[in-house]
């Protein structure tokens, strides 16, 4: 079990995504780069209030090639999608407490990019999101949403 937002955790997310995509009959081709931006909201202990953590996800032939933390926007990196939301929202999604599609529908996660492609690849998108939300056993060193006060409490939670 990897700590959230660590290289090991990203690899587990990637593997979870790819395991699910492997069950798909006809995953879409092509390459996509997705930026995930998480801003501190004063609730999540993993993203300080006023700061942001950015992640880049690369999809190749329907599979996640890599998932890594990056610094800000790199103009050389062409993005296809940008997902943006608060630390608390993304923590809750990773903890399986918040449904990522509902978060997008309700605007707590903002999605930018070619929505027509995203709608046409709904099955694939859904598989990736479900893998992110429920496919990884996550360790929460600073507490699991709703953020227990101590690590012992977090473990009990």
């Amino acid at each position, binding site marked *: 079990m990897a700590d959230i937002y660590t290289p090991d955790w990203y690899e587990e997310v990637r593997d979870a995504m790819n395991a699910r995509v492997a069950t798909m009959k006809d995953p879409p081709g092509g390459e996509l780069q997705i930026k995930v931006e998480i801003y501190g909201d004063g609730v999540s202990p993993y993203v300080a209030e006023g700061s942001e953590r950015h992640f880049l996800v690369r999809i190749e032939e329907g599979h996640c090639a890599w998932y890594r933390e990056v610094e800000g926007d790199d103009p050389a990196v062409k*993005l296809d999608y940008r997902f943006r939301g608060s630390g608390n929202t993304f923590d809750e999604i990773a903890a399986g407490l918040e449904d990522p599609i509902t978060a997008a529908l309700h605007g707590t996660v903002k999605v930018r990019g070619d929505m027509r492609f995203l*709608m046409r690849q709904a099955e694939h998108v859904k598989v990736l999101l479900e893998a992110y939300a429920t496919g990884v056993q996550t360790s929460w060193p600073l507490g699991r949403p709703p953020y227990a006060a101590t690590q012992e409490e977090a473990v009990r939670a």
Partner: protein
Amino acid sequence: MRDSYDAIIVGAGHNGLTLGAYLARSGLEVLVLERRHEEGGGLCTEELTLSGFLHNVHANYHTFVDLAPPVHDLDVRGHGVEYVRPEVQMASIYGDGTALTVHTDLDKTCASIARFSEEDAETFRRLYVEAHGYVDLLLSTLMYQPPMSVKELTRALATFGVEDRSEFLSVKLRRETINQFLDQHFTHPKVKAHLAFHGAVCAYTNDVPGLAIGFPLLVGKIDNWHLCIGGSHRLAHALWRDLAQHGGVMVSDADVRAILVDGNRAVGVRLADGTEVVARKLVASTVSVEQTFLEFLEPSTVPEELRGRIKNDVKHKDWTLFSVHLAMSTLPEYSAAEFDPDVNRAWVVNLGYGSLEELNADFAAARAGQLPEPKPNAAVNSLYDPTDAPPGCATGLLRQFAPFAIAGGGEGEWESLGRWYGHRCIEAWRSHAPNLTDDVILDWVPYTPLEIAQKFPNMVRGDWMMGEVSLANMLDQRPLPELGQYRTPVEALYMAGSTQHPHGFITFAPAYNALQVIAEDLGIDTWWRQV
């Protein structure tokens, strides 16, 4: 004007200017041709009554400000456009002297609705919050990209399980009217009437099957109505400035009479004075499909079947608007202010529709060519724009849902009916605002459906949405399936005006979506797609 350009755009309405500005910013040499004496199309502001009184002849409500990508991409504010978002956006005044007000403050709107029904106020709050959450997602999915089919959308919504995640979105809405949606979710007739009225002003007629699908989106931006300070034409100026600053050219009084075709490729246009201008890469039409395919193109260049379908199958709105523009020496003071003082600050006021049945009856009358007993809506821009009238004075705009052709006499009847019906509309306003006596109305002019069609031939039969607003005439079916993706059977000829998805109104979307298609075809760098 030179002999040739990369792109020639027919029509300098907001869509033509928007497309031109994007292409000019992309490095193309662009020419936009306008039949009238000025750019803007429906973004038309004139001193129709007295000097110093600025009347928006057509477009008055800018509801996509900060939602439509071109507002940002083309820096319209940097080019001088100033928008104000009135605190009291809209009101309904009912026959019994009660009133409902919609504010930019959700709590105030809900408090107003609660005076009629606390249950409806709670429902409205949930609907607004839900719709406000996904309004930009829906806009980017449904409006600001070339359209998908209803089938594709339905499949995606089912895959994402949207019905299970939303109280108000449902696949069945594609078969339902706004009336049905309102009856399912709301209880009080006046609340339902106000929400239906709001939809109707946006051309989403409450009794048309399938339009319920768009209703949550309308509610999501119900408080995003903006007024363009100094008149809507300021936006046209801004778009023209952007075009010009990037090397584009707009020529007015340039009456296009023909789109020139070589082989099966559009290669230029011919003007009324015989001037021919070459289009090296594309011609885009933002006027009607009738003008484009039946007047501008030689019959031999258009497939016979398409000509027939344009003549027979292109659908236009079955009601239009009769307007009265007023110059006044005072603001209206409504009797209903005793019930809700905020009605005196409401920008747009529904004067009398208190039930869905009343709206149904008047749309049925208009479709039958009959004049409804006036229940106009009144917009007083001077409440929020101190520049649109001399100090101490105000402009007024009355709009009544009305037929284009009068039963038994046709549209020509409007020439004799305009003053008479206008007077009746003023009387209807006065019945709610008794201070609007003859002595404070300094001047007024009617603006009839016939005049709409005469002033703007692209608004066929006074159709200010340039095509019926119905599910059958939306998305990739608008205006016909073979034209639904902005391309045409004539190579290098594109449709980029309000005949296309989504529809009229100041959305910028037809031009923005045509731009995506043109960029794909010409390999233009899509600098505007900043993910």
